[in-house]
């Protein structure tokens, strides 16, 4: 309490005078979540640049294959559902964590990671197939932009899984300590953010890509 009055003396010592400043629930130790949110926003800008590039180069096929010919929408539908289901399983992990159940948290986190791995494997299969039929990143401006955008998203999912596995070890070792709760929450923001980006990807790249 003593160091609290040092830092927050403006609103605690002079009652009524400056209380409009920080009346509500002000937590100085709240920095991590806000900082992580700002990181996500900067990530958003990376994706905005990649989306803009894709939008500009979206029809520059250079005589090569087009997205309309090669995109397999049923594969994308499976991928989309994997990512969507992984969002709700992460939600279950959050609920288990809120109930202070470490086993349940780890179980649902593991399920989420599995779904993420499934998504990543299907995406790698798709990339492999595209390159195999002659639509690699070097084929045309369109495919460069495609691989840059979808690949960056896939890379994010990969790092999300790495983080998730690390967190599983942390949870096993230390349990649901406040630090781990904070980490699980940050990863939840990261994971749901990737789903938001994927909504943009499947709409803008795949669905609009197969339309004439």
């Amino acid at each position, binding site marked *: 309490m003593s160091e609290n009055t040092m830092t927050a003396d403006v609103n605690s010592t002079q009652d009524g005078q400056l209380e409009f400043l920080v009346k509500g629930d002000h937590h100085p130790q709240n920095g991590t979540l806000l900082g992580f949110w700002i990181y996500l926003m900067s990530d958003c*800008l990376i994706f905005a640049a990649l989306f*803009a590039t894709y939008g500009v180069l979206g029809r520059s096929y250079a005589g090569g294959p087009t997205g309309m010919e090669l995109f397999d929408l049923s594969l994308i539908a499976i991928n989309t559902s994997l990512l969507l289901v992984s969002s709700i399983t992460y*939600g279950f992990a959050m609920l288990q964590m809120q109930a202070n159940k470490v086993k349940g948290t780890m179980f649902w986190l593991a399920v989420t990671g599995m779904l993420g791995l499934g998504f990543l494997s299907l995406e790698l299969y798709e990339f492999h197939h595209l390159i195999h039929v002659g639509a690699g990143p070097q084929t045309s401006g369109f495919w460069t932009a495609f691989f840059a955008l979808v690949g960056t998203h896939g890379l994010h999912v990969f790092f999300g899984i790495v983080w998730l596995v690390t967190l599983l070890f942390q949870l096993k070792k230390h349990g649901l300590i406040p630090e781990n709760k904070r980490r699980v*929450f940050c990863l939840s923001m990261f994971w749901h953010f990737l789903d938001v980006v994927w909504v943009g990807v499947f*709409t803008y790249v795949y669905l609009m890509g197969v339309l004439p």
Partner: protein
Amino acid sequence: MSEHTHDHDHHDADIPHVSLKEYATGFVLAVILTVIPFWLVMGDVLESSTTTVMVILGFALVQIVVHMVFFLHMNFHSEGGWNMLALIFTLILVFITLAGSLWVMHNLNVNMMPGMMEGASLHAPLHAQSC
């Protein structure tokens, strides 16, 4: 059980409270908003592709808002409003990046395509080649 965590709330208060209802609502809405655009495109439901593009872009925007509200727990008072402020600022930048790039490059394409400066006879084969 969940009330129990509020005993030492100066740690746990950092993390927003989440509920099953919130996640379930978000998930159901997201599924609906995903299935409809896929159905529209894969089933060739609408005749005009411009209309389809407009509709699926609309669905995507709504779904992004759904994810923000129900999964990312965005509202106007989390972190004292700074979350929302950062988000609005980012959205403005995203809009400028996307709309600006597309607008400028579209103008360049329209005004500087070699085919546009010559007659229609030169334009047709060049156009066919570039597709």
